[in-house]
């Protein structure tokens, strides 16, 4: 990766913006994270030319692993064309000159804010998460010294206190995002802020997963094919959200759906939150129950128009 630095180190930026020394520091943190799956490695997070909350942790991780031959995909809420995804993709197009794509299968590095692609990832892909709050114990124990000790001692009873409260107040485990998991039978980790629908995907995933929290200065990782278990009770086992209808546009079932308002008369439909997945299915001739609806086609057309680069 070092030669890339010379090639691109011609203007005001080093390749992928960060200087090589910073990248080495971040790569060391990443390697440590891979060696201790689920463990939060502190790192000297740098100022990035974007505000915290815009995924500066993920951006620094991506910048540190990106090579000139990589192909980058950016996901926000499942879609590639929201402001956050567009601006981070633009950032890397400008500072690294790498190829970018909307297609999951074409990407070698995928940075995401919320969703994991519906399509299974491969060993030659890396998934980078932008994490706002890396500490799963924070909710009940605000003291950092104490949470560190709890991780060191594998003292995780508090996580179940949180789940207990959930059931007591809602009748079921109501946590739907940032649902805590235990990685490799050791560290409890927050896959924040993905929906719990995606938790099964991070178990035994062939791709490397890297998590970066910029403001909190933490990096953690899940190596390929690692056991990741969602916490639960024996009598309230972990379950993912179920959608009772298929995607309105492509008819996909067992995928994560977003509700879309079609008009001001209460017209609505449910569509794949993974827009690439949906488009690919439609291109392959799959049609959902709303596919012929004019408002829906307008929505779908509008969405795909924006994807034309």
């Amino acid at each position, binding site marked *: 990766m070092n030669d890339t630095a010379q090639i691109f180190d011609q203007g005001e930026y080093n390749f992928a913006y960060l200087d090589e020394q910073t990248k080495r520091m971040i790569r060391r943190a990443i390697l440590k994270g891979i060696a201790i799956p689920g463990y939060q490695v502190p790192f000297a997070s740098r100022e990035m030319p974007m505000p915290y909350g815009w995924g500066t942790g993920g951006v620094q991780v991506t910048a540190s692993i990106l090579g000139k031959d990589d192909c980058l995909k950016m996901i926000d809420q499942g879609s590639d064309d929201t402001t956050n995804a567009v601006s981070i993709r633009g950032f890397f197009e400008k500072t690294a000159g790498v190829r970018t794509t909307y297609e999951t299968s074409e990407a070698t590095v995928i940075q995401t804010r919320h969703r994991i692609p519906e399509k299974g990832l491969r060993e030659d892909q890396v998934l980078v998460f932008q994490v706002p709050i890396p500490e799963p114990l924070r909710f009940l124990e605000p003291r950092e010294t104490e949470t560190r000790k709890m991780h060191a001692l594998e003292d995780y*009873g508090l996580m179940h206190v949180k789940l*207990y*409260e959930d059931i007591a107040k809602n009748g079921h485990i109501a946590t739907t995002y940032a649902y805590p998991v235990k990685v490799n039978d050791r560290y409890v980790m927050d896959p924040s802020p993905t929906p719990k629908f995606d938790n099964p995907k991070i178990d035994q995933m062939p791709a490397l997963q890297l998590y970066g929290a910029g403001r909190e200065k933490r990096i953690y990782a899940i190596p390929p094919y690692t056991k990741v278990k969602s916490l639960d*009770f024996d*009598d309230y086992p972990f379950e993912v959200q179920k959608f009772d209808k298929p995607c309105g546009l492509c008819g996909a079932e067992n995928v994560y759906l977003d509700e879309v308002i079609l008009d001001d008369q209460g017209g609505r439909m449910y569509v794949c939150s993974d827009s690439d997945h949906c488009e690919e299915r439609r291109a392959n001739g799959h049609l959902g129950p709303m596919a012929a609806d004019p408002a829906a086609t307008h929505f779908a057309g509008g969405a795909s128009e924006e994807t034309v680069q």
Partner: protein
Amino acid sequence: MNVFQPEAPLLQVHNVTRYYGDRIGCLDVSFDLWPGEVLAIVGESGSGKTTLLNCLSTRLAPTAGAIEYRMRDGAMRNLYQLTEAERRLLMRTDWGFVHQNAADGLRMNVSAGANVGERLMAVGDRHYGNIRSTADDWLGRVEIESDRIDDDPRSFSGGMRQRLQIARNLVTRPRLVFMDEPTGGLDVSVQARLLDLLRRLVADLGLSVVIVTHDLAVARLLSHRIMVMRHGNVIEAGLTDQVLDDPREPYTQLLVSSILQV
């Protein structure tokens, strides 16, 4: 083993001293605590009661001295040589600690049920239904109505909070409970009810207790033995009735007479 003592001591305290800089917290304290025994530590404000209690309960490392505890497997262990993991396990299974201020001993932002169930979850209980019914049972034992199980302790009165704190500690059936002024700051009638409850639970469960109080009436009601502290030293110790009815030390006589005048 001594034939006159069918059991061995639960806790052995050897010359425990704690300084705060140059200031004495407690000085050269030694005693044994026996299974099922309730020991009261009394003395005026600043005499070193809390310092000693915190040393005993591994919350404050002594400057000198040693404290040994008989683990559930019968082995005598030096408390300050336990690993952090062993110490934590001990504190949340075999021990309890009841704070004067219930908020220090409770999680104020989770329900009463979760407060009681926390220890169970910490030691690996993973069945929600069982945790909840055990919590419900313990709330009943401390006279908190079942329908308050999902309320958080912020909505509880001072007396209820204290009873909840006690249930939270007793749910794992500890053998030793430390208490620092458990009835302090409560109304007299609320105090009486709490004392009554404590006395019953201690007897039912055969608990060993070290209780700090400056209230001799509390010591009289709950404890078998008493230690009187002054300026960090234990100046008199013995069976509670003996010490309170027939104090030897002039200072203890003063303490006893002042309570009688109240």
